[in-house]
């Protein structure tokens, strides 16, 4: 089966003169069409760097990136934005504070404005059309994050890259966002990479999980396998910690 997104041997080092931090070490990944891939890891694991490299916001030091077998390594967001969209942790700052939701959503689309499509999408993420007239400061965090999802869909991106998008939300809003993503995955065959430190959350949403630590992928596989029979010590620790925070 053709991978919709693929990365081979990605490396990235951040550094100053006297200190180098290798954020990504020979990372390989792939994403299939209609798949929800979860990347678990804690701060400093390189998971956000990986997402930024995939999106084109950061250029990798070495390695190759493919979208439907076509290489796009080193291309900037203006190019990658044609097939992928990033959703950020801080929902409020994803919108220009001076813009109404409507302006922000219209801005993100390259094609002609399509009112019907926009209304349809808002319905899918469970938001009222009236909210389009509001600014980010007048919406709740959960509403903003759903609006971000709506914006990504409206831009007609194939793939969503989600960077800790629920970690600033409370459990109920989080559950709502997760439900929406699941539904979109079924109804629209949406493909997405979902980065989070919360492996419990990933387990409820994703079909496949990659666990990252210190810039490397330490374990990956189907969610049931990774959660059921973790092979790596770090994965076990993550799962155990998550259990303590869960019911």
């Amino acid at each position, binding site marked *: 089966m053709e991978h919709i997104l693929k990365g081979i041997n990605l490396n990235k080092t951040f550094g100053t003169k006297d200190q180098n931090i290798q954020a990504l070490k020979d990372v390989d990944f792939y994403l299939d069409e209609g798949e929800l891939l979860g990347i678990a890891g*804690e*701060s400093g694991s390189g998971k956000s760097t990986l997402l930024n490299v995939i999106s084109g916001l950061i250029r990798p030091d070495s390695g190759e990136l493919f979208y439907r077998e076509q290489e796009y390594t080193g291309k900037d967001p203006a190019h990658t934005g044609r097939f992928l969209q990033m959703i950020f942790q801080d929902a409020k700052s994803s919108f220009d504070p001076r813009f109404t939701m409507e302006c922000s959503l219209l801005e993100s689309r390259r094609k002609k404005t399509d009112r019907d499509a926009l209304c349809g999408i808002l319905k899918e993420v469970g938001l009222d059309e009236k909210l389009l007239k509001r600014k980010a400061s007048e919406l709740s*965090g959960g509403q903003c994050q759903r609006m971000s999802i709506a914006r990504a869909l409206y831009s007609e991106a194939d793939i969503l890259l989600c960077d800790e998008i629920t970690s600033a939300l*409370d*459990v*109920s*809003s*989080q*559950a709502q966002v*997760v439900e929406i993503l699941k539904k979109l995955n079924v109804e629209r065959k949406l493909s997405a990479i979902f980065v989070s*430190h*919360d*492996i*419990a*959350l990933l*387990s*409820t949403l994703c079909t496949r999980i990659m666990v990252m630590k210190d810039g490397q992928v330490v374990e990956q596989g189907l969610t049931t396998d990774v*959660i059921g029979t973790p092979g790596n010590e770090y994965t076990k*620790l*993550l*799962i*155990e*910690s*998550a*259990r*303590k*925070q*869960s*019911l």
Partner: protein
Amino acid sequence: MSETILKIQDISLAYEECPVVTNLSLDVKRGELLCIVGESGSGKSTLLRAVCGDELVKVTAGSIIYEACDIVGMKEAERQKLKGTRIGYIQQNPYGAFNPLRTIEAQFRETLKSHGKTFRRTDLREIFGILELNNSDEILKSRPYELSGGMNQRIAIAASFILRPELLLCDEITSALDVTTAAAVMEELFKLKSENGTTIVLVTHNIGQASNIADRIAIMYQGKIVEFGESEKVLMHPEHEYTKKLLRDVPRL
């Protein structure tokens, strides 16, 4: 176990002239770990801050009785004395508790001095030990900005604890931390409770987190407590619809 240390009676709180909490009553028993669970805007943090005597939170009705004294009517100086020595408060932002540019040691000395206690390294080492802050000398020499969020949060707990408060108020202290660190901090909190008998009130939006350590759980929704009881009862036999929803929404492994 049954003695009440803090009694909140029919309290109404307002923040910026808009009412946040209305007519709420709650009692905290000595030595227990009470979790207040609710989503953002439910008034749970406002409630804690009212107990601390935060000036921005206005008590419009009711009383907060701590060991037979009403905190609401108390003079500022008296309240300051109470705060820190008998009531400890740890906030959400781990960096917020300290001056980022001064060494941890200087700040510990200052805290202790302002509460009329002397700084002793042995005391500190003992508390750092409980919190698994092993290389205490190195930590004391460093400045908050050099340390990670998890480390800072643990030091903030240590700073509250070195004053040996009877009551420790924790406001979403793990939401800025990684899961593994959060789990460790929770464990340490539990240890402080069971080994030293400190009464702890923990505010969180994650009922999952509460379920593992709480003796009793209060569910807050729109400025009111909608369910309150023994941890097991609330988790196993929730009565209120909102509690049921919260339990449904927690991701499970």
